């Protein structure tokens, strides 16, 4: 039963994203729903948002899984992801202020609280668990907006966010299987498979951008799986490169704002379309700027560097998951 549901959910997530995205590219192009790709010559326009094919795939896969399991955890993950998609879609269609996404994403966290699909223990390596019954509800309401916006913030270059989510979801799935939380592990497979299938079209040079609807759906789903599966610490460690990106940006600009509202850019585009770190003292510090600290790089080279960091963090997260079973 578990094997059949895992194969079904995975196949639906991958195939729906893989087959629907080219149709979505045609539709978005036809209706002029395109944005400029700033790091390409000749004012290249790329269709956006691709979140629609991602959410259709995730909803189809999770509904199929729900039919197998009737699990309230799967339902909570699904509703949270769908709400986050709509919040992102509003931001894709209208320019919203910087505080909109963090505040609106609190709504996406509410189904997890209402369905009671969490336990209030935080598991740490070596030292056991911390029981935080009241604080945990506040933590849920903070985690979904933080994870959603953190994943959104790593959507900096062609292919980065889809590749990053695919890598970061692997330790989550491995940990859930190791801890015998099979339903939630299978519910996490559509996150990995939708990201992998979308990467085919999003990788350098991008044929489509996921938009906020895609990135917020992935980020909120990642956070929901972490909470419902009780693997919050492992999920946080796997996400460290994106967390570092958000942390560096917030520590630089000292307020919650959209990247587009920052006057001095963290990077500079050279005549040969390589990207260089800004040497301006007032430019915000971001992950991208630190990756470029040793000199200019091509866009695809930067994406590969970020994937190396993601893979390293994923390894640390798996190590953490193993160490959670070790008590000193």
């Amino acid at each position, binding site marked *: 039963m578990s094997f059949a549901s895992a194969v079904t959910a995975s196949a639906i997530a991958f195939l729906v994203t893989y087959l629907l995205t080219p149709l979505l590219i045609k539709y978005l192009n036809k209706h002029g729903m395109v944005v400029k790709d700033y790091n390409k010559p000749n004012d290249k326009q790329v269709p956006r948002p691709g979140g629609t094919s991602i959410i259709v795939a995730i909803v189809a896969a999770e509904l199929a899984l729900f039919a197998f399991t009737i699990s309230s955890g799967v339902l909570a993950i699904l509703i949270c992801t769908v709400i986050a998609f709509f919040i992102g879609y509003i931001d894709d269609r209208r320019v919203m202020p910087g505080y909109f996404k963090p505040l609106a994403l609190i709504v996406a966290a509410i189904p997890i609280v209402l369905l009671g699909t969490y336990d209030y223990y935080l598991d*740490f*390596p*070596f*030292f*056991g*668990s*911390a029981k935080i019954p009241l604080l945990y509800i506040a933590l849920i309401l903070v985690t979904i907006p933080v994870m959603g916006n953190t994943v959104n913030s790593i959507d900096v270059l062609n292919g980065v966010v889809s590749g990053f989510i695919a890598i970061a979801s692997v330790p989550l799935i491995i940990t859930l299987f190791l801890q015998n939380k099979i339903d939630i592990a299978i519910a996490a497979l559509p996150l990995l498979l939708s990201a992998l299938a979308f990467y085919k079209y999003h990788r350098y040079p991008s044929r489509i951008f996921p938009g906020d609807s895609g990135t917020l759906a992935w980020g909120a789903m990642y956070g929901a799986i972490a909470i419902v599966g009780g693997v919050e*610490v492992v999920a*946080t*460690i796997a996400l*460290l*490169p994106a*967390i*570092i990106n958000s*942390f*560096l940006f917030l*520590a630089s600009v000292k307020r919650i704002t959209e990247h587009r509202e920052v006057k001095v850019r963290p990077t500079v585009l050279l005549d040969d379309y390589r990207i260089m*770190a*800004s*040497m*301006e*003292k007032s430019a915000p*510090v971001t*992950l991208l*700027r*630190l*990756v470029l*600290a*040793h000199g200019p790089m091509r866009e695809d080279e930067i994406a590969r*560097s970020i994937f*190396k*960091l993601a893979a*390293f*963090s994923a390894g*640390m997260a798996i190590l*953490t998951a193993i160490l959670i079973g070790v008590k000193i």
Partner: protein
Amino acid sequence: MRLGFLFGFIVIMWALIILGAFILVRIVAPIQLATGDIASSALKAAIGVSMAVAWVWILVLLKNAYVRRRLTAKG
């Protein structure tokens, strides 16, 4: 090594999470004041928040030192 600082930063963040877990689970959680549960919880929350601020401060210091060294040619 181009990504050396960032790999190091990830390891330091991981170590701070583990150290934070030790302080919270082994030292802070067992604290029980004679004045009652609310005072105990307030003290634990205050220690937790102070620790988070201290961790952020350590990371900001590291980031600033690296940015000064590699990324600020002009003022």
